[in-house]
């Protein structure tokens, strides 16, 4: 490979993209968006609060009504002066949103039936609050029926509220405060970022190959340089764009956090409830509790110390290595596919075999935190097509060094083989005009040289 010529190609691919307005816009906007995402959930939660729903209650059992406390979302009014049917028929005229009917106590099962009627659905949250309250009332009634004296005081004394403090042990026996919620988030973010980088910048390589083919500039280019120089010059140039963007994002995000932190008196998360944030992000309730626990006001320090405990150096180095080779693996395959078509629309079918392992890696990575050492996470982080993504997601949970080495070696070997195969396809493909190619054609081209 002629390094001087390849250098010229790299610099064109790089400068042409970095000078584009869209590059500047995404580079500066994403950190702002990222910061906004941190703050937005609390804003949305605040804006989404409704007026409390008014519920008329007819308590046939006599044990529930007095335990129903009003809160921000729902308030209860005793409606026993009305007939149930009258209440249901005149609900809105009387100013109620719903009617809650509680049956008389069934003496054999010591239970009640509860039905709620409303014009509009009540919403999961309200339903849950009401059913919780009723259950508590019934439970209290049942406990009371045992006739234990001084029960309330006993219960208060019995009630326990122990928090689990996790520590990880370093090899030197050093105890470090840690919090699995933080690991989970770091793991997901890492998996997501590397997936996005590979997919976006790999796709960019493909579009660029297609552009050269459609504009017919490609034959002029390969009469000056070797097709492999053109392909790898492009892949390297775009990789440098990705790395530039990544580094700028880190710097800018740190700058924004620094500035906002200084202005807001380091109270960045002060008025947002982390539990709500997590719910907004669509994480299930049990995971949310961990996060909520981690991020309770006053426990920010635990989060910070957990973050501090992460092998940040190792993560950054691994990110770069896995990105560079994972990206090269996918980008060269994308280049081969781009060489076979003359417009982006035709890539759908050819792209499938590439998209599937990439997405698979992404989904394994998203769940890697649940069982970072499970068989699927382990193999996902070893097999080269998913390893860049899954290994990154496993990293916060301390992966043995030998596994990282095996994974990197396997990835590099596979990347070398696939880059070589892709280059063979690419060489032939870029000069094929006016025909829609299939995988069969690509196979034929591969055997041609």
């Amino acid at each position, binding site marked *: 490979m002629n390094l001087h010529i390849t250098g*010229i190609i790299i610099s064109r691919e790089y400068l042409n993209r970095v000078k584009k307005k869209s590059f500047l816009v995404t580079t500066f906007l994403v950190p702002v968006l990222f910061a906004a995402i941190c703050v937005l959930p609390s804003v949305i939660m605040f804006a989404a609060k409704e007026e409390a729903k008014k519920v008329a209650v007819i308590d046939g059992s006599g044990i529930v009504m007095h335990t129903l406390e009003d809160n921000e979302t729902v308030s209860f009014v005793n409606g026993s002066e009305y007939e149930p049917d009258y209440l249901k028929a005149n609900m809105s005229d009387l100013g109620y949103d719903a009617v809650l009917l509680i049956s008389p106590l069934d003496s054999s099962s010591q239970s009640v039936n509860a039905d709620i009627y409303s014009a509009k659905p009540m919403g999961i949250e309200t339903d849950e609050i009401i059913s919780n309250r009723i259950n508590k009332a019934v439970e209290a009634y049942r406990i009371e029926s045992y006739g234990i004296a001084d029960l309330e005081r006993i219960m208060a004394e019995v009630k326990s509220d122990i928090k689990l403090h996790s520590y990880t042990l370093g090899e030197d026996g050093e105890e470090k405060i840690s919090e699995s919620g933080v690991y989970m988030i770091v793991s997901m973010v890492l998996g997501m970022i590397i997936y996005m980088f590979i997919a976006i910048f790999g796709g960019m390589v493909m579009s660029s190959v297609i552009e050269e083919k459609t*504009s017919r500039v490609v*034959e*002029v280019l390969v009469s000056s340089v070797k097709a492999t120089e053109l392909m790898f010059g492009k892949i390297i140039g775009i990789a440098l764009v990705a790395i530039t963007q990544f580094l700028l994002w880190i710097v800018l995000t740190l700058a924004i956090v620094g500035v906002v932190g200084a202005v807001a008196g380091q109270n960045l998360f002060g008025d947002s409830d982390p539990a709500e944030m997590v719910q907004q992000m669509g994480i299930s309730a049990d995971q949310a509790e961990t996060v909520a626990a981690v991020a309770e006001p006053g426990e920010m320090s635990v989060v910070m110390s957990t973050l501090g405990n992460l092998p940040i150096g190792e993560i950054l180095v691994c990110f770069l290595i896995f990105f560079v080779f994972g990206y090269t693996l996918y980008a060269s395959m994308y280049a081969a596919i781009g060489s076979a078509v003359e417009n982006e629309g035709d890539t759908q079918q050819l792209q499938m075999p590439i998209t599937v392992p990439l997405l698979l890696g992404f989904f394994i990575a998203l769940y890697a935190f649940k069982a970072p050492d499970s068989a699927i996470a382990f193999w996902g982080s070893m097999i080269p097509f998913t390893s860049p993504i899954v290994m990154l997601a496993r990293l916060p949970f301390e992966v043995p060094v030998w596994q990282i080495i095996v994974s990197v070696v396997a990835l590099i070997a596979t990347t070398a083989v696939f880059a070589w195969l892709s280059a063979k396809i690419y060489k032939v493909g870029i*000069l094929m005009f006016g025909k829609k190619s299939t995988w069969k054609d690509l196979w034929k081209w591969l055997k041609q040289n």
Partner: protein
Amino acid sequence: MAIIGIKDVSKSFGQKVALDHINLEIPEGGIFGLLGPNGAGKTTLIRIINRITIPNGGEVFFNGRPITQRDVEKIGYMPEERGLYRKMKVGEQAMYLAQLKGMSARDAQKELKNWFTRFEIQSWWDKKVEELSKGMAQKIQFITTVVHKPTLMILDEPFSGFDPVNAELIRQEILRLKDEGATIILSTHNMESVEELCDNIALIDRSRLVITGGVTEIRRKYGNNNVELVYTDSDGRHTEVLPKETDGTDTLRMYLDKGVQINSYKELMPRMNDIFIKLVKGEE
């Protein structure tokens, strides 16, 4: 001496044979026409000379020695399927292509400015290619083909896409480059331009070389040995086709004795077009 020597070159794509043991010499200097119907293997041969495609067998010589990757810096290639980056500025793009041919940035800038001045298109330097008309883009394409002063130029259908005015401009430039000593390989379907421009030709049909040689010799060889006589008498102007004799003096004297006025007497050369069709049809 031949600038390009093609020795027993073959190329096949899977089952399909594109070139079948081609032997060909392209003399240095002058314009060499590469002719043949669509799909005959012209483009494959051109790509092999450019080292875009590697042959299955045989060898290509450049100035008498086996061609290397460095030699492509001395070749300027304008493919039939040609184009430029649409979103790139004209000047930047021309600089890029020139540098890929091994020019330094300074030389490239200087030479390009000269060409832009010659074609009176200095104002296009900062325009994007997509803002140019097709004819304008073709001019840029031509400049990028010749800016690095190649000793060999390969032009595949150079006149397609040009309007008559620009086609004439390119024709003049080709002749000027020839006068400066460059060798030009012209692949074309346009037989008129072959007769007018080419010194030598090669005809390729169905992967094989059919004929190669000087244009005049070939036309003479495939001539019917006829002469055309145009004369004027009291009835007006007449044209007659007569069998060619070694010495036409007797024939001419006979006509002159009739008291007619001779307008012209010349050997009838077949059109390249007719030879082309005859050879290609004859092969079938």
